[in-house]
């Protein structure tokens, strides 16, 4: 199927005073796309992410992921849906502090009752952190923790990978590493939804940028990717000496 995520006229209202509501949002995301969602804080972009992940329910409208209407699913079914189809990467990693890196990665599979130690180790290896699989999160750097989180997000081969400001808590170098990994995954076919406030990051990795302001989608830009020379995009003006 090519249309992976379909939102129809989705509205989410919170109690008065809490920002993040959405009103009348319709949106389609294709399989294999790398989409960035941008917007100021309180615009509703996190709410959008949570609705797509089935972590929250819309007040009205429908959310369908992989052909399944999330509105028809009960709490337990939604949990299973998240477990099987969604990979989540958060800004603050949210690893379970009492488990080693490897154990953290295995959790989503174990919730299904599956034993996938081999795949977990392979993922850690791919992400360059095989040597710390036995360590606890407190002993890992931010970049390492986020990569563990990515491995955890990928263990069940999710249909959709959701990243909410994944580099927000990382230094530039680690952040770049993480984003490069996302790009590689997308090249291999993973559909990715990236929430970020940083336009530089959004335009670097995603060809489609959705802008959310005050609960509405104000722009949905599919950017082009021609190969341009430097001189086409920058002009340095030089002042000549006075004679």
């Amino acid at each position, binding site marked *: 199927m090519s249309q992976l995520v379909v939102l129809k006229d989705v509205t989410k209202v919170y109690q008065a005073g809490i920002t993040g509501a959405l009103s009348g949002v319709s949106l389609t995301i294709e399989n294999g796309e790398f989409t960035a969602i941008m917007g100021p804080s309180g615009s509703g972009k996190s709410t959008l992410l949570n609705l797509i992940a089935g972590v929250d329910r819309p007040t009205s409208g429908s959310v369908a992921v992989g052909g399944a209407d999330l509105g028809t699913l009960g*709490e337990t079914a939604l949990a299973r849906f*998240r477990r099987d189809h969604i990979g989540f990467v958060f*800004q603050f990693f*949210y*690893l379970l502090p009492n488990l080693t890196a490897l154990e953290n990665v295995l959790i989503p599979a174990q*919730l299904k009752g599956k034993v996938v130690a081999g795949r977990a180790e392979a993922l850690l290896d791919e992400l360059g952190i095989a040597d710390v699989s036995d360590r606890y999160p*407190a002993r890992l750097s931010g970049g390492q923790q986020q990569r563990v989180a990515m491995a955890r997000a990928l263990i069940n081969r999710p249909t959709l990978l959701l990243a909410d400001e994944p580099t927000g808590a990382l230094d530039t170098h680690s952040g770049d590493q993480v984003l490069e990994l996302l790009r590689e995954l997308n090249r291999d076919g993973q559909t990715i939804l990236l929430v970020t406030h940083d336009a530089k990051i959004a335009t670097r990795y995603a060809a489609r940028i959705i802008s959310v302001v005050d609960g509405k989608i104000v722009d949905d830009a599919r950017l082009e990717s021609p190969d341009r020379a430097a001189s086409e995009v920058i002009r340095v003006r030089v002042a000549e000496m006075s004679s």
Partner: protein
Amino acid sequence: MSAVIVKAMSDLRRRRLQVVVIFVTTLLAVATGTMALTLLSQTNDPFQIAFAAQRGAHLRVTFDGRTDPGTLAGTPSLVGAAAFGGPYRATPIQFQYRGHKYAAAAVGRDEPGGEVGQLVLVAGRWPVGDDEIAVTRSFADLSHVSVGETLKVVSVADAPVLTVAGEVIDIDQVRADISAQRAWVRTSAIDRLTATGGGYYLMNYRFASDPTSAQLSTAVETLRAALPPGSITGSINYLLVRSIFNVVNQVLIGILVAFSIFALVATVAIVANLVTGIVISAYREIGIMKAIGFTPLQVALVFVLQILVPAAAACLFGIPGGTILSQPLLASSSDALGLPYHATFSVLLDLVALGGALLIVTLAALLPALRAGRLKPAVVIANAAAPRGRSGRWIRRLASGLGLPRPLVLGVGDAVARPLRATLTAVAVFLGVATIVIALGETRHFADIYPYEAHVGPVDVVVSKSAVLTDPEAMRLFEAQPETERVVAETITNIVVPGIADPIPSVMYRGDSAALGYLVTTGRWFNGPGEVVAPKGLLRDAHLQVGDTFIASFRGTTVPLRLVGVVYDFAGGPGGHELMLDSSTVVPALADLSPSTYFVTLKAGSNVALYVDRVAAAQPDQLEVQANTSGPTQLGMVSAVLLAIAAVIALMAVGGVFNTLLLNAREGARDIATLKALGMSPRQLIAMVATSAAFLALVGGVLAVPAGVQLDHVLLDLVSAFGGNDTPPSFYAALASWELIAILLAGVAVAMLAALIPGRWAARTNVVEVLRAE
């Protein structure tokens, strides 16, 4: 300083649930502690006060009816008594009131006062006519007789009727139960009430200062030497009376103190747990407080105050509550002895209890609070959540090795992630389960002892006979009934054993007494004349061993006896001085001693009620016939108190578990939200929390059950020892294995129930809010 108070109060208002937990646990602990302390401090006093006020008799001796009263009057100077009462003429009587038969000792006495053994009139007046009688207040309470009503004396042929003129309190009374009562009539009225050969004399002696047990024994020996052999038929001294009075209280107090200590430890564990939890959940706040400018001491004070305020409020209710609760117990023990009851408590004691409770709570809160004070602000703000320990790793490995599903494995790991908190919670569970085991065990033991003593089971009908009806007449009646299978006749008398000053109450059985079901811990039951069994206490005090022969004296004649077994019995009172033997041993010497009680066993399938009615109808005046079922026990109150306290401590344990789960859930809100986002269903989340609870309960319970059983044995040994007995092995097992396992599983189940609320809270976590609110 005001900043500290303002912060502490605002925290109090926010953390309402924890305030309630602290209040309730402190309240329970303080109430039981105060109750125990009050009882402990008061017990000895009422008796001493009453004894001195009523000039009680240090020594009371009964003499054979043939002794010369003149000689008796000279005995006080022989033993150096400063004051004496008597000689009083006395006789055992049996009388009837409202369809019930009672036995008492009637004493001829013309005035209630005197130098020794003053009787305090509490209702009516002293008898003035020969047809009047005064009874003790305890008897009046137990039988519901009041002044002005009449009693029919059935132990003499012409059955005189006596009117109750007044009620008195007798400090020298040995036991307040129905079986050992005395009543008073005019000296001129005694003859009419005395059955042939039944009269005897009674002397009360009082010394200038309280004599020791040795001095009392010497006094009795002096009397024995000075009078014709066989003159002394019995003696009681005030030490014995006091110790009997104290027995029940001492058992009760001992148990109460033990349980209060349990409750206190549980409170400490719960409070420490609570404060540690509060501190951890407030880590970020602490950092901010210190950054604003709170000194470490002030930070610690904020936490201590939060705990002290509800604890102090709990003391305000708990200490008066505990004092008030102790009064009925004090009253019942005083009443049991017919002593006047004064409401006694000491304000000083209450203040000590208050100070002690607050001190303990403060100390329990202080350690974690001080740790909070010492934390560095930068570290703390950066590390919003405290780093958790690794100790769960091998447990998790074990659990997943056992093939448990992942949510359960995570739950188990969660339970031990903070070792200190897990330990404190397990301690609370341990205490709760152990006290339940002990309370149930002791209650069972008490419930077992009475039927054992009353021979419920082996004996279907118990018949009490008055002296008027002869033994052969009674036996003929029994044998005339077709259902009668077996009759064992019991006669009680006194026998003097070498080495023991007071004559020993002895039970003589005629018939198949072995079938009565007494437990013999060493040796065997007696087979024929000359053989005796006795409780351990008598062996110890008389320096006897199984197999020994000794020369006892009965009514002046010597009787050689051989000790063949150690019997488990409480009728010998504290010290366990009693003998059991076959009547044939002394039959030649006592033609006039008739059995007073018959234990009848019916053929299988007989209708007991019909039998009882028939026999009672045949001899309404001379026999009291009852079906042998066990009734409420005297120690019922002790059981009730035990169970109540055990329930209290168990409740505290549940509170402790609940509190731990709540803390874990709150702290782990982020992890729970993460797991929910990763795809853990609500049911799995609840299972995770429930497993945490079940694990802690299991650990605490598995340790508590054997510990509780052991402590129960210890307590039973105490109770047996008071009766001068060693506990027979078969008595130990109060609770069957399946019952113990059931208690353990019940504890786990309750813990899992307690987990439901935190579990549902976890399952309902709003992932969005939690994960975004950083």
